[in-house]
């Protein structure tokens, strides 16, 4: 059930398929490397947990961690309300690790910039790759995904809503057009 002004971009089944394909690609690209999945709070963390579970059924030990990038944002000065800090949890050695970073939606790229800076403060990884469920364009930084669920052309003011069973009670990706179209 979706309100009238929302368009369903991905169904629950679509999400499952995309994640399975993404898992296969990651597995194939790293036949022997020790891997770590790191998700950005909140929905990136759920995405990475799911891919981590799928990967763990295919191969030996895959590490998992979560990042809270609140303290690395470039717009803290301007925020009238600030986010609650949930804290990052990186329970493995970042030094030398092959890390796949997960986020639900890739938009301006600023969140990813913040996440990269934070990861570097934990150590010097061998490699960081980026996996996202939706790439909606409008990049403001030179950042591109290595693993991608779906690319979608959007107006800048449009809202993309990613829902996951774990916190939203259902799976799905929805688009709502914003007020001002470019």
């Amino acid at each position: 059930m979706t309100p009238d002004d929302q368009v369903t971009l991905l169904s629950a089944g679509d999400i499952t398929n995309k994640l399975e394909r993404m898992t296969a690609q990651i597995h194939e690209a790293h036949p022997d490397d020790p891997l770590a999945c790191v998700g950005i709070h909140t929905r990136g963390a759920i995405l990475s947990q799911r891919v981590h579970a799928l990967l763990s059924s295919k191969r030996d030990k895959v590490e998992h961690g979560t990042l809270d990038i609140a303290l690395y944002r470039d717009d803290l000065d301007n925020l009238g309300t600030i986010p609650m800090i949930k804290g990052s949890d990186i329970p493995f050695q970042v030094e030398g690790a092959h890390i796949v970073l997960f986020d639900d939606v890739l938009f301006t790229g600023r969140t990813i910039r913040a996440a990269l800076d934070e990861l570097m403060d934990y150590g010097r990884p061998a490699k960081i790759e980026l996996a996202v469920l939706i790439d909606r364009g409008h990049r403001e930084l030179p950042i591109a995904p290595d693993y991608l669920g779906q690319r979608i052309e959007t107006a800048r003011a449009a809202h993309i809503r990613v829902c996951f069973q774990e916190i939203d009670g259902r799976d799905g990706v929805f688009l709502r057009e914003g007020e001002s179209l470019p």
Partner: protein
Amino acid sequence: MIQELDPRMSRRKDLLDIESLTRDELLFLLDTARPFKELFTRSVKKVPALRGKTVLNLFFEPSTRTRASFEIAAKRLSADVTNLSIAQSSVVKGESILDTIETMQSMKVDYMVVRHSASGVPAFVAKHTPAAVINAGDGHHAHPTQALLDTFTMQEAVGDLRGRKVLIVGDILHSRVCRSVSTAAHKLGMEVGVFAPATLIPNGRPDYMKVFTDFGAALAWQPDFVYLLRLQLERQAAHFFPSLREYHNIFGLTRERFQICSDQGMYIMHPGPVNRGVELVDEVLTYARCLINQQVENGIAARMAVLYWLQPATTVLPMEEDAIA
């Protein structure tokens, strides 16, 4: 997170006392302090949240611990810190507080941490500067960051503070620590008891404060925390009590009273620095449930949470809703 809170919190310019904080703001600051403490175990302990910002420690009253704690907190948030203490400042040369503030303002300071022996100075400073002002202790009035680190330390020890009891012992009358800690404890749903020499209990105390006139009765009330205030030794000159030895015998944590505390598993707290043999006997400092060292460590995390939350008026731009994604 111990109690469910809104994931976003609106910000304030200054932190002047605990009274003006809502319970949600108090809980938000405590919840925010926790992840800051986790940072201390990382190889790089700094985060860039306050990069390029300047914090001025403006101390008109001597302090080493509180100033160092604020300095480390600010530096771990990547701010630049300047310390100005009375001994080195031009206040001794006759400059007024207002002139000092204006001088500092022309240096484009973003945060001012103010301590003064007169109540109300931080509030006065806050009115005259766009910088965010944090009260680091003013007269007998308030010491809000001390109350934050104390309640944070209590939460770490027992979890949810609702229904827990804290007994505050010592100079209630002159204590800004007592005023702030008891207010915070009350807002967080704790029961607050005080035990002090009758000459050091204020008349205008809040109703929720339970007053004990006997240490035995106070301990029989079974507090979860026994909070010993520091005795300001210079007060003895004002004859509020006869001698240090007598103070210790009647109001100190003697060996016998400490035995009761440890038998009952009570936690012991003290804002420091401790006068050994006056507020407490030496053995207390090695007791497993003595939280004095944790209080010092948590001071940094609590002050980082405050610096993260406050917003100087210098940097307020037209508000835009969360543009990052």
